[in-house]
């Protein structure tokens, strides 16, 4: 509970931003869905055949899993707010359309006849008779849609639209329950609050309802206008994948670029999504720069065969060539650290047995007690390959990622798999063993951007190249540790590193 409160206090700025984004996306989607669904429902009331078809269609749309829908939208409209809003609108259509349609079509035939017999025009009948009678049902539909939207909008974080989902994603990614709870609770509270507001609209005096409605519009509009105002100078947008490490890196990028060129303003989009989302965001000019791993380029992004046993430099060169050729992108020089799969032992164990490389493990084969993630044990480029390449004969226990660090610190196991820059390595005093046979593919981070962008911004390129060959694995572990465990801000941690290594002058 205390950590929850502490996290809440530390993150309240971020939470407010996320809440605002969430509200914006949700309300925009709701309004668009209403504008589409209500007139459509009114139109089909006298066309039962159309109504049947449209009800079917909206029901089918409703059954598409939200993740799949977001996935389908990416190739069409890219990532960010637009596909998120489209997806949410699609979900909100059914309840609003259905309730409006039923609300009007279920009006007693005799009341319709009375309205006709008194010579009401179509419009007058609609606004004076039909809509008022159907109103409670329409409002109920809107409330259902609203709750649905606010819940589903948490997925918007997956495609870089921000919102409260960012907290949930981060919570899952960092195994941080407090973050996850804050995201989930806020979104639930938001749903309850807005639902109550909509109900109030139904019963409130028209004048009060109008004032509140205009107020909300003005707030949102003001927010929108402000963001336009804030973005009026041409800004560079830098995004990062989920997690602390990309967030630290993009903060370094920002500080280096702004120090190099005073006329450039850098906007950061941390925790923007996963590899392919970011890559298509870059392609669609929604993002100008993001840090990418050499290994990921070869594995997921570029096309071509990937020869085994490549050195770090060979991997980088191959990735650079492919990106330049296939995507017209520029891949700047990588930093030193290699965030790949690795094997780690406790420092104590390492010193006792004089271990430096993975090959050294063969000498202590008989006393090894490995505990590894199921994923790693099962992969050909994981434990299976290691055993073959290094002639190692061990059997590993499969363990949950978080548990294996606990287990090794308590001496229940003595060898674990890890990512080379995990903050836990620092936290539990573990040492990495050198992959002397280059078995694991190299994952070195380097800034990726479009070639056209690089040509236009030589100062940015120059600034970013200062990081080439910098930051060792231990440096990165330390910084991840400071952000993940000691809860320092990524910006502070990045700044401290840059100053300490003479890349940036103190006191900016």
């Amino acid at each position, binding site marked *: 509970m205390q950590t929850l409160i502490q996290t809440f206090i530390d993150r309240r700025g971020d939470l407010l931003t996320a809440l605002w984004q969430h509200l914006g996306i949700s309300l925009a989607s709701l309004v668009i869905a209403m504008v589409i669904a209500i007139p459509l429902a009114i139109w089909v009331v006298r066309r039962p055949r159309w109504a049947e078809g449209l009800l079917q269609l909206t029901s089918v749309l409703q059954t598409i899993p939200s993740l799949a829908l977001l996935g389908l939208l990416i190739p069409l409209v890219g990532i960010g707010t637009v596909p998120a809003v489209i997806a949410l609108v699609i979900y909100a259509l059914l309840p609003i359309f259905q309730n409006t349609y039923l609300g009007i079509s279920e009006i007693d035939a*005799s*009341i319709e*006849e009375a*309205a006709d*017999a008194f*010579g*009401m025009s179509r419009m007058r009948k609609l606004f*004076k008779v039909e809509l*008022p*009678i159907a109103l409670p049902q329409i409002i109920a539909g809107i409330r259902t849609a609203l709750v649905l939207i606010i819940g589903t909008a948490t997925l918007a974080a997956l495609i870089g639209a921000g919102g409260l989902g960012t907290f949930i994603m981060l919570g899952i990614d960092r195994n941080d329950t407090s973050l996850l709870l804050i995201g989930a609770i806020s979104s639930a509270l938001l749903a309850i609050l807005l639902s109550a507001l909509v109900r109030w609209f139904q019963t409130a005096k028209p004048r009060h309802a109008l004032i509140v409605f205009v107020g909300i519009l003005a707030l949102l509009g003001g927010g929108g206008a402000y963001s336009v105002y804030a973005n009026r100078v041409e800004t560079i947008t830098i995004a990062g994948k989920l997690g602390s490490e990309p967030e630290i890196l993009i903060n370094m990028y920002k500080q280096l670029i702004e120090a190099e060129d005073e006329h450039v303003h850098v906007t950061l989009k941390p925790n923007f999504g996963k590899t392919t989302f970011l890559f298509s965001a870059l392609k669609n000019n929604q993002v100008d720069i993001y840090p990418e791993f050499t290994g990921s380029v070869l594995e997921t992004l570029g096309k071509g065969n990937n020869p085994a046993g490549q050195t770090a430099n060979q991997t980088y060169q191959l990735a650079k060539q492919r990106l330049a050729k296939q995507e017209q992108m520029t891949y700047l020089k990588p930093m030193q650290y290699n965030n790949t799969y690795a094997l780690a032992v406790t420092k104590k164990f390492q010193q006792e047995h004089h271990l430096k490389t993975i090959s050294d493990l063969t000498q202590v084969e008989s006393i090894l007690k490995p505990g590894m993630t199921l994923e790693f044990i099962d992969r050909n480029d994981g434990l299976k390959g290691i055993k073959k390449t290094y002639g190692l004969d061990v059997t590993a226990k499969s363990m949950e990622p978080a548990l294996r660090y606990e287990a090794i610190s308590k001496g229940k196991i003595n060898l674990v798999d890890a990512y080379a820059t995990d903050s836990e390595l620092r936290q539990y005093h573990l040492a990495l063993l050198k992959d002397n046979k280059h078995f694991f593919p190299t994952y070195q981070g380097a800034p990726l951007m479009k070639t056209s962008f690089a040509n236009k911004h030589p100062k940015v390129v120059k600034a970013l190249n200062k990081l080439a060959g910098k930051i060792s694995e231990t440096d990165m572990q330390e910084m991840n540790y400071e952000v993940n465990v000691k809860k320092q801000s990524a910006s502070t941690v990045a700044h401290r590193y840059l100053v300490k290594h003479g890349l940036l002058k103190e006191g900016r």
Partner: protein
Amino acid sequence: MTTAIEFQHVQKDFNGQTVIPDLNLTIDQGELFVLVGTSGSGKTTSLKMINCLEPLTAGKILVNGTDTTTIPVRSLRWQMGYVLQQIALFPTMTVAQNIAVIPEMKGTAKKEINQTIDELLAEVGLDPKEYRDRMPSELSGGEQQRIGILRAIAAQPDIVLMDEPFSALDPISRQQLQDLVLRLHARYHNTIVFVTHDMNEALKLGDRIGVMQHGQLIQVDTPAALAQHPVNDFVRNFFGASRAKNVYDVYVGRVGLIQGYLTEKPSVASGRIQSLDVQATLRTAFTALTDHDYVAVTEENRVVGYLDSQRIVAYLSQHEEVS
């Protein structure tokens, strides 16, 4: 007398089936005309063709001499009130708003509308202060249909169409509302076309009655002529079928209508004659005849005729089966 509504060779088909083959009818201005018939006889369809709720298949209907198809449908309907069997007050509007529906569309001034509403409510015995802002759901069935009638007459239409307006009401409300219709008709002199399946209602209300069967008008006549000279067995039976379940509940007015009244005032002391309303039942009449010789049947305090016990017994023996 000028003609308000005229049916000329009107034909109506539903889904290719002719339900009204050839209807010819003239309704005079200021007349309360009742169309009576069993369900499916085409009476409601005939009514709805007047305000174009049902289109005609052939023939034409003239309203005040003009073919209805040549008048814009909304202005046609604005000059005709309409009262429905289902009452169908607009549930989201107050009593006052319901009554104001047509005057508002016609652009009558707000102040004038409000005044009319108060007058009309008072006229039907509902206190304006209390009832103006009530919702329809807060009213009894009888009260609702009062408002239904006021809604129809608020814009002072020349013609009011009523489609079985009281058939869903309890007997007491029904009688009160029938009286209300007679009173309003006497006061505003508008033309009323009233559809019902209840012959008693028809006899009570109608200046003239049209009996319909299978889409055809079988007989159009005054209540008395209809009662005394039915053109065929259908009319006679229809008339018979409308008798009360219990002979004691038969109206004295009905006995006079069918059996005929003594038109001369009997030459006895006035203390020997008891006055009874046409709506009084035979039960009351028998009680009166235990210590009187005659009953004087009155309608709106005007003597219609006289009955003695022989006449009533004769009526019972000829027209009512004693079960």
